[in-house]
């Protein structure tokens, strides 16, 4: 019962805030939402008793993972994000076969303050996943895409929360 309405809310992909340049393909929106919803359902089902913190953390990870998956492998930040989550999840075997083949592992990148860029770029690098491994130019590029994906993810989650909280159990 709740799910169809949820889908109704989510299927029309409308992101007027996104700039036209590198937008997320609208046809993948329902599917990407489904990934997240699936994760939500799984999390909810499997851990009804766990603490709020644990579940919220899991949901957050699910959000980031679905966002990164939606962005695809062609983006530096999505790759870095997934790599970071892999490391956290310590689930190497399943992922490594796929990812290591596709992703060129980046060695420890230089951390020194780079030249030709403003000092604030360091803070930006810390925020955007994969930041330290990029030059300033691509950092700006990745930041733009990252902002787009983040805002779409936030909108998605807001819709989910909205539709869920709006639901009243049938008397």
């Amino acid at each position: 019962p709740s799910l169809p309405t949820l889908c109704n809310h989510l299927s029309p992909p409308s992101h007027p805030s996104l700039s036209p340049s590198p937008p997320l393909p609208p046809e993948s929106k329902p599917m990407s939402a489904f990934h997240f919803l699936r994760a939500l359902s799984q999390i909810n089902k499997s851990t009804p008793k766990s603490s709020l913190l644990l579940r919220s953390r899991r949901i957050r990870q699910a959000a980031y993972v679905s966002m990164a998956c939606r962005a695809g492998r062609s983006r530096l930040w999505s790759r870095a994000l997934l790599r970071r989550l892999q490391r956290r999840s310590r689930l190497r075997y399943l992922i490594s076969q796929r990812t290591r083949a596709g992703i060129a592992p980046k060695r420890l990148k230089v951390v020194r303050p780079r030249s030709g860029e403003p000092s604030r770029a360091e803070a930006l690098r810390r925020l955007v996943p994969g930041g330290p491994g990029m030059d300033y130019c691509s950092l700006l590029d990745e930041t733009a895409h990252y902002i787009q994906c983040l805002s779409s993810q936030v909108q998605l989650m807001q819709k989910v929360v909205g539709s869920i909280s709006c639901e009243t159990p049938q008397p």
Partner: protein
Amino acid sequence: MEPTRSSGAGSGNSGTYTPEIAESLRFEEEIQSLMRENTVHPSLEPPPATGGSSFTALLGLPANQAVELLHDPDSGDSPAASGGCEMWRFRLRDPKVMTLPSGCSPTFPSNASLVERAARFSIFAAEDSPEAASVPSHTHSSDHSPKPKAEPPDSDSQPICPIPGERPQRPAKRKEAEKGIKVKGPAKKGRSAEEGSAKVAEDNTGGDKLPYVHVRARRGQATDSHSLAERARRGKINARMKLLQELVPGCSKISGTALVLDEIINHVQSLQRQVELLSMRLAAVNPRIDFSGVDSFLSAECGRVAVGNGRGGVGMEQSAWMEAPAVNGGRRQQQQLQQQQIWHVDSVHPHQMPSVWERDDPSHLFNPGSSLLGYEPANSASLHINQLKTEL
């Protein structure tokens, strides 16, 4: 031979024009005389001799003026002789004077248009242009066109020399057409190359917008390749900053890179905080949701909707968040088992089977699988509905 003489005579750049005009007049006359010597054909030998001396004299005059001579393409044999066009360039404001290429014959273009343009441009400020125009017209009252001295800055119309063939187009790019004329000479390649590229490269590097003077203060530039690359890079960065400004609400009004960056950082931080907040809300709200039908629905949808989402990513996705808080090695094999079970069921999108996830006890492992098997045929009706939705 021709000394590069930094002009002692370089009077203040924007200073007195009349003396410069007078000098240029003298210069033109001298060139005219030179030309008359070469009227028959561009003879290489004699002119250089005289030219050298006269050039040195000339060099003394317009020390701070930029003049470039273009060789007339008509004088085709000169390139053969001198190996190219001879080009001299006097820099306005720039004390370093060009060196006349040795061995270059001072063959001047006998092109009326060239001359006119040169006259228009050479050295004179915009305000002086009428004077300049009058001056050259006055001096070149004779239909003799050979005023090589002033090259039209937009020498693109006249590919003067075969060698610097590409150079002439560059001046066209320049906004200040008034300036300089580029003449490329083999000997001057270094400097002219630098200047040419610098001219091409950036119009706004030179701070001053004085119309008459030539150029863009290339003085700050190092070599052309570096500056060009830097310029391109800066252009890219600026374009991306503009894009970011559009993305971030309220950023377009802000001017200045630092503040814009701050705003961007704030925006990213706020978005991440929103994600956290929403995830907490979802966690709080979740128990209220009936997710029983979700598995089947989702799997069915995944099965039906052909989506090229990275399957590997999905698999990663599944494992990643489920394993994030806790890890259990034993579970992996079960996951794999589950996956394979499901793959038999739904061969279309095996990776998207949600049954892979599970957390703690093995009982969960099999429940989703069985539920999947059980639900799929039962929920065909709802699946149709969902199909319609997803096709939006």
